[in-house]
């Protein structure tokens, strides 16, 4: 049997999986380890100019006058431009989607014209020979303002006392209601009803590399090459083309090394669009790299939800119904092109996700405010849906006097109940909640921990154990964005080329920001073709080179791009065997490829070195039959279709110790059991989980973009905005269940967001478990010492 030939999950057969399932170190990590990567800010081009932006100091103000006189005369300045000047080269956008009914947002310009709607919005651009000269000149811009009323609080925004965009009628960007019916009756009849309100702070991605773009317009060709730290090069190619008026074929987007993205670098940012427009205007390359302070003001923020949830439960512990009311604020514009309606939408879709109740009602409002924009950041909506579900579930268990693990056992959807349709309409192909719960309890030695917890409580040490079960959207089909009219590709493609030396070059439309997609593709390609992994070279992140595709977002890279690589690898192998059969005058079915050789299928005897095959195919095709043409470059694509999403499931647990005198939480350990289908590289999967968990812990304990009543961001720097540091993070134990998706031959689902989705809920439940003896409870993230002491009534 050839390498990785059947579906990898074919029941009852032995499939040689090759490198799939092996913890192979990432070949592309070597350059990063030596500081020899190529991040955008590392690139140097002739005549490169640098842009810095004049950003609004006010959250909401009319621009009465901008005076560029002094700035224009400053050293090194090439040009100073306002919104009107840039708008002549860059069309504004409106971020709505057809399938989010009623969503509205005003047109947004690359540089704001007339009015600033959040503190940090770019109002003018200064291009100079160096970034420091550009910054110096920004400081010389003089502005006159008329300050406008500021809407900061989302409840106030909903009441619509001040309408931010009067032309839209009110402050509601989007709302949605969902009702399966029978919810009122279920609550009326329920033995137990629990209710709570959860608050989720606004936070942001803090990619260690700021957003970065270098746009290089070639006036002679009317072409634009954009080097950009982006997750979605083809999406950006389309957007640059349409908004800057350059034929798509003349736009090339190249994403070299990207210093973290987490969803931050998948959106259209006005300052980046302006940079591309400035390159056209000035007919020379222009670079913009967001420094840390402007990152806080202009990278998308996320979350900021207030959610009321009610749960109806029978006295035997069965969940009967969920009732949800979510309010979220997104800043003054919906973000292009994905919109800012998706996170709230996900909360509605996913709440109660792991459990087998059938009655569900949800109401959700997305409102505008005068703060920085929010949009999709790692795990979009999941951390909220998971935490509020798991928080209310724990409260119900507590009220019934039931162990939280036992309560989950009763309510998790049975492992044999699939395919399963969830009340919100989502369809699950196959999940493994019970297996995951059992594995978690065993791995963490749950009952031992409970014993230890009660023993320590006697000594005045307050430990808590928190569990959070979850489902997660991965491998999205066109149902996510495409059906709404967004030009965001749900399919991906891979091209594999056998080189004359017997090497294989893989070009894939999915990008790499450190997750290890390139390593996973190398493993898949090597396995499918039958070669050793050192013979594979992977190229991603260049619209001029790779097939068309969506890129990296929504945990789709390995599952969708990986399948395309697998299919292309098998096709290449088959074409290689055609060449070999012609060379050897044998039948193709008698041959196979193994360890860089064509071998006899039965005897495994080595027949031809692939370097020899390549030599003949490329340099001596005259020795092959007259009617034979070798095809040693193949391309395959893959689109998930049967299900809107390949849902994964997982469950996490957190062990914390709360110092009830200081309010400090010490994380002692964290467990994460995940079922993401076929695991291609266990080490990389575990590292994705761990990194994700730590970002989720950040949200739970530290991270919040704090705004004052005037709409000023109060902690927009890395000293005041806390991100997790090595010293305070626990060791994280990962374990796996593998339920491959049968929608693909590879069977892989996504994993990049799982950690972030589940960790906040687990940590919250652990803290509340620790606080139980004090009858205290926290529900507003981040759980700062101050909030914990308040709950304990100590401050």
């Amino acid at each position: 049997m050839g390498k990785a030939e059947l579906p990898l999950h074919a029941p009852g057969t032995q499939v040689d999986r090759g490198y799939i399932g092996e913890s192979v170190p990432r070949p592309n990590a070597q350059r990063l380890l030596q500081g020899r990567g190529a991040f955008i800010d590392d690139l140097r081009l002739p005549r490169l100019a640098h842009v810095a932006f004049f950003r609004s100091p006010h959250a909401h103000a009319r621009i009465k006058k901008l005076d560029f006189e002094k700035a224009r005369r400053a050293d090194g300045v090439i040009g100073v431009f306002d919104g009107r000047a840039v708008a002549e080269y860059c069309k504004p956008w409106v971020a709505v989607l057809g399938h989010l009914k009623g969503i509205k947002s005003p047109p947004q310009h690359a540089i704001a014209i007339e009015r600033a709607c959040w503190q940090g919005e770019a109002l003018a651009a200064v291009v100079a020979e160096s970034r420091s000269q550009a910054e110096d000149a920004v400081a010389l811009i003089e502005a006159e303002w008329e300050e406008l009323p500021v809407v900061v609080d989302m409840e106030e925004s909903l009441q619509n006392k001040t309408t931010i965009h009067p032309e839209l009628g009110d402050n509601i960007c989007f709302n949605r209601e969902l009702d399966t019916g029978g919810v009122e009756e279920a609550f009326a009849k329920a033995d137990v009803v629990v209710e709570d309100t959860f608050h989720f702070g606004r936070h942001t991605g803090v990619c260690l590399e700021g957003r970065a773009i270098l746009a290089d317009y070639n006036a002679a060709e009317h072409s634009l090459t954009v080097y950009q730290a982006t997750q979605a090069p083809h999406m950006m190619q389309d957007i640059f083309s349409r908004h800057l008026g350059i034929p798509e074929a003349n736009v090339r987007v190249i994403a070299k090394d990207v210093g973290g993205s987490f969803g931050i670098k998948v959106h259209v940012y006005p300052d980046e669009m302006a940079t591309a427009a400035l390159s056209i205007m000035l007919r020379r390359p222009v670079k913009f790299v967001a420094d840390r302070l402007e990152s806080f003001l202009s990278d998308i923020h996320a979350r900021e939800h207030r959610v009321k949830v009610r749960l109806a439960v029978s006295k035997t512990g069965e969940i009967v119904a969920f009732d949800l009311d979510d309010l979220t604020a997104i800043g003054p514009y919906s973000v292009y092109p994905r919109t800012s309606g998706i996170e709230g939408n996900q909360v509605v879709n996913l709440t109660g996700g792991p459990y087998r109740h059938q009655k569900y009602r949800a109401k959700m409002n997305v409102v505008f405010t005068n703060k920085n924009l929010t949009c999709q950041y790692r795990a979009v909506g999941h951390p909220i849906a998971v935490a509020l579900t798991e928080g209310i579930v724990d409260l119900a268990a507590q009220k019934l006097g039931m162990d939280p693990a036992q309560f989950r056992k009763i309510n998790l959807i049975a492992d044999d109940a699939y395919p399963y349709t969830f009340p919100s309409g989502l369809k699950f192909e196959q999940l493994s909640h019970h297996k995951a719960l059992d594995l978690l309890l065993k791995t963490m030695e749950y009952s031992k921990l409970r014993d230890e917890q009660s023993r320590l409580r006697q000594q005045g040490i307050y430990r808590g154990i928190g569990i959070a079960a979850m489902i997660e959207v991965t491998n999205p089909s066109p149902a996510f964005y495409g059906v709404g009219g967004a030009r965001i590709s749900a399919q991906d493609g891979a091209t594999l080329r056998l080189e004359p030396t017997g090497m294989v070059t893989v070009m894939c439309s999915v990008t790499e920001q450190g997750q290890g997609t390139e390593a996973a593709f190398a493993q898949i390609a090597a396995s499918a073709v039958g070669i050793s992994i050192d013979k594979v070279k992977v190229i991603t992140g260049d619209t001029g080179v790779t097939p068309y595709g969506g890129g990296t977002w929504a945990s789709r890279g390995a599952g969708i791009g990986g399948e395309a690589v697998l299919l292309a690898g098998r096709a290449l192998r088959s074409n290689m065997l055609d060449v070999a059969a012609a060379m050897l005058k044998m039948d193709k079915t008698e041959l196979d490829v193994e360890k860089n050789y064509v071998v006899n299928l039965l005897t495994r005897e080595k027949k031809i070195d692939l370097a020899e095959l390549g030599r003949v195919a490329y340099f001596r095709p005259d020795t092959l039959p007259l009617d034979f043409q070798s095809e040693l470059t193949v391309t395959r694509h893959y689109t998930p279709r049967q299900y809107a999403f390949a849902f994964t499931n997982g469950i996490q647990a957190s062990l914390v110790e709360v110092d009830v005198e200081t309010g400090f939480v010490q994380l002692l350990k964290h467990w994460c059991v995940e079922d993401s289908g076929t695991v291609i590289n266990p080490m990389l999967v575990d590292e994705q989980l761990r990194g994700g968990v730590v970002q989720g812990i950040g949200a739970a304990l530290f991270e919040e973009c704090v705004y004052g009543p005037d709409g000023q961001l109060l902690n927009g720097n890395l000293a005041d905005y806390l991100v997790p540091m090595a010293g305070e993070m626990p060791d994280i134990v990962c374990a796996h269940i593998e339920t491959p998706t049968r929608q693909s031959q590879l069977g892989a689902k996504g994993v990049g967001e799982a950690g972030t989705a589940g960790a906040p809920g687990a940590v919250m439940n652990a803290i509340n478990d620790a606080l139980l003896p004090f009858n205290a409870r926290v529900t507003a993230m981040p759980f700062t010492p101050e909030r914990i002491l308040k709950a304990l009534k100590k401050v």
Partner: protein
Amino acid sequence: MEHANDITLTVNGTRVSRRVPARQHLVDFLRDELGLTGSHIGCEHGVCGACTVRVNGEIVRGCLMLAVQADGCTVDTIEGLSDAKELEALQKAFHERNALQCGFCTPGMLMAALDLTKKNTKVTREEIRAHISGNYCRCTGYQAIVDAIEEVVNGQG
């Protein structure tokens, strides 16, 4: 013209002389003047550690030191220490354990880790975590980094 100074220093074993603006910090100098782009800029206010380089044998934050202050100093960056193989064991352990994802923090992290190996004593995981707490990593969750450093430091110690 802004205030500028002449400086001469040894960077990765090579003597260089430049006229630098007084306000230019060391990483900007290394990156923009010398093209040594392996030292990264993550915050420019001394928090993240991405800019960590070695000056006269001690690790410093390159964004908190001015280029003029490095006059007469010996500066080592990730590029130089990689070529000199000083980082080899750490780089190997980082690679094998996937102690990096995007790699943006990695040069600074390796500098901090190398500093710990120089102490020649065994360390606990807590000590490693404390030692690298001034180096932010947004991707890995730190555990693999701690594992890799532990392997190298305690392997030698």
